């Protein structure tokens, strides 16, 4: 066994030889928004912090706005992750910085009513909106989260803005975490100029400047328990491409372990470790904000692959009342690789749509799952090799919201002059008129019958102050049965959020990390 070099900064796992044994005050698993928030708080409090991250240390010299490089390097499963039934494409980050490296920079504070719902329905009462506010303010300063000026929205987002206004829907420009954005449109491929204030260029460097070490290409296999504590974790180091272990192993002992491997990743590690699970909720209530998409073909070029991918949103339908699942509207980047996998069909028909790419406007309806008893979310399981796999079947009410989202977007795109709107159904649905919109009432929404995707994974280790209902308690996100294990990432949410998740993660995890480090 050799010791890990005691240096703050990033150590790339693939460069190390021999098995490692490490002892620190705090070990954090995962370096996305949750893990980075924890790393900074503990490092600032003078703790010896080690962050272990499966993804690679990719920096701006390797971000060339190329889809062929980005998906394999920066996404879970090389961008091929899906739900168990293959019906929903799951986009999730895997890199130093986690999903923040490839996300689309949209920032929202959590709506207060969601926190109230968690308190009443899920007994998560450990913090209030007012507790989080200073942490929102801090992160908004640090990540330069500012409102987009209407003049700078790209034509794709402009269609959404003007379309909502034409239909009298509430709409506004959003906040983004960028500084000196050059409008490359490549947020999803890693920012080529570090304008995006991802964890890679913000909280992780802040933590490293205060002594934290980040070990990349280190996959945590399992946690080991002694009594009611985690005694150590074990894992393997991976080669630079992350595909194969190098053969070197690692064992980390720490006083405290912070699990921040993301929704899907965190419950996966707990299941693999056979962690105590008194509530039986580990891996349950996983939510996706499943997305339905309309691709409108416009008479003028939209060039939806350039410019900030998201700068406008409408929450007009977020709370539809009664039993209806809500949804919100945003734009999506029209990158050729991404679009090619979403457009149905193949051969000539597929090529004909792809040839229209510069004229395509891409808009999405993001459904808000988890607020109704009959929308219970999915379950994280382990596949035969022990990798996490999400078993998620969209509930009928969620599918109804996706249909309503399609109809709204189709109407909006036609209103804005689209010659035709593709809803990405199989068999193909092309909407050219109000009559075609009405016909969407008969469109199928079964697995494989319409393209569905998710970039917002949440839940799987939900918080509740009732140990029979949640995996962690809310006041400090501590595991109910493991006293030195806290979970700080998007997996602790008892429902989806109804807004893009990153700022909520910074806010809540910043608050809890500050409490723990105090």
């Amino acid at each position, binding site marked *: 066994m050799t010791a890990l070099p005691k240096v703050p900064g990033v150590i*790339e796992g693939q460069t190390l030889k021999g098995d490692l044994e490490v002892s620190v005050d705090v070990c954090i698993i995962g370096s996305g928004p949750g893990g980075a928030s924890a790393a900074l708080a503990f490092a600032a409090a003078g703790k010896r912090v080690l962050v272990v991250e499966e993804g690679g240390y990719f920096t701006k010299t390797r971000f060339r706005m190329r889809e*062929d490089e980005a998906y394999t390097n920066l996404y879970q499963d*090389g961008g091929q992750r899906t739900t168990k039934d293959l019906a929903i494409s799951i986009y999730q980050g895997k890199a130093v910085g986690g999903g923040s490296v490839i996300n689309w920079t949209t920032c929202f504070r959590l709506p207060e009513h969601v926190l109230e719902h968690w308190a009443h329905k899920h007994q998560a009462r450990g913090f209030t909106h007012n507790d989080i506010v200073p942490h929102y303010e801090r992160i908004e300063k640090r990540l330069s989260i500012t409102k987009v000026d209407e003049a700078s929205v790209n034509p794709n987002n402009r269609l959404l803005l003007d379309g909502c206004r034409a239909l009298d829907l509430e709409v506004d420009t959003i906040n983004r975490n960028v500084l000196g954005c050059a409008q490359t449109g490549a947020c999803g491929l890693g920012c080529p100029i570090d304008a995006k204030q991802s964890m890679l260029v913000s909280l992780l460097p802040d933590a490293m400047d205060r002594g934290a070490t980040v070990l990349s290409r280190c996959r945590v296999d399992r946690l080991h328990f002694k009594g009611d504590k985690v005694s150590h974790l074990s894992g393997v180091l991976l080669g630079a491409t992350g595909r194969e272990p190098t053969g070197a192993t690692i064992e980390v002992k720490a006083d405290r372990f912070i699990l921040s491997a993301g929704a899907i990743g965190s419950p996966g590690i707990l299941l693999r470790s056979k962690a105590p699970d008194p509530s039986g909720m580990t891996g349950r209530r996983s939510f996706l904000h499943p997305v339905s998409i309309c691709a409108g073909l416009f008479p003028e070029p939209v060039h939806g692959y350039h410019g900030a991918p998201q700068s406008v949103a409408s929450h007009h339908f977020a709370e539809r009342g009664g039993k209806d699942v809500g949804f919100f509207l945003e734009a999506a980047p029209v990158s050729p690789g991404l679009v090619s996998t979403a457009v149905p069909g193949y051969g000539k028909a*597929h090529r004909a749509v792809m040839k229209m790419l510069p004229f395509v406007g891409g808009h999405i309806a993001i459904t808000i799952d988890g607020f109704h008893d009959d929308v219970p979310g999915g379950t994280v399981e382990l596949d035969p090799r022990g990798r996490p796999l999400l078993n998620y079947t969209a509930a009928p009410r969620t599918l109804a919201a996706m249909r309503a989202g399609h109809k709204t977007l189709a109407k909006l795109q036609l209103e804005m002059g689209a010659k035709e709107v593709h809803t990405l159904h199989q068999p193909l649905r092309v909407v050219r008129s109000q009559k075609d919109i009405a016909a969407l009432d008969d469109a199928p929404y079964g697995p*494989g019958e319409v393209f569905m995707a998710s970039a917002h994974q949440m839940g799987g280790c939900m918080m509740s102050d009732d140990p029979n209902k949640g995996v962690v308690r809310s006041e400090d996100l501590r595991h109910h049965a493991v006293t030195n294990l806290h979970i700080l990432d998007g997996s602790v949410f008892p429902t989806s959020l109804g807004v893009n998740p990153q700022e909520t993660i910074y806010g809540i995890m910043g608050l809890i990390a500050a409490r723990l480090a105090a």
Partner: protein
Amino acid sequence: MDRRTFVKRGLLGGGLLALVGGGALFLRRGAYTLQPPEPLKVLDETTFCVLVAAARRIALADDALALRLARDVDEALTYGNPVAAQDFVKVLYLLENGLLGLFFRLSPALFTEMSPADQDRALNAWRDSRITLLKGAYHGLRRLVLGAYYTNLRRAKETGYPGPLFDKPAPPAIVETEPLSPPYVVQPPVEVVAPAAPDEKTAPGEAPAKGTP
């Protein structure tokens, strides 16, 4: 397809999937003489040839391009979940499988030996199948091939996509035991202050002071 036929075929299909999963292949073998441009990593020579045949139809690829796409999919699979990659190999055996074809397409022909029109019919049979697994397999195959086609910058430009907003030099090739990036240089911690207001006119590369190497 009525419900009874569906159930009958579905059960049979499920049985065959199980057989393929268990390794017993009811497979008349084809010629499979195509040479992959590089040694294969996930596929074998049979499934490589099936994928080449599928890529011809899915991406309208000529022979050379179909070989390239099949090789690129083979490479992409090494980044995916290993269990899913093995399932994909089984899917390609299924597509080729004559016995399964007999039940689903009413034709015992091997996929690699079919006419292009029949290959389309075989793909469409999966596309339109009421068995979720086959529908999923159809989409998986389609997406891997089309993804390999359109994530390539040169081919993406066929759509009218002009490419990235500016060029960046290619970084050094990734070597399994070498660092991916220059080391992070630790700086004396400063109190986090409010960043300057973003300047819309900032030129690429001039952005923030604290960045990555």
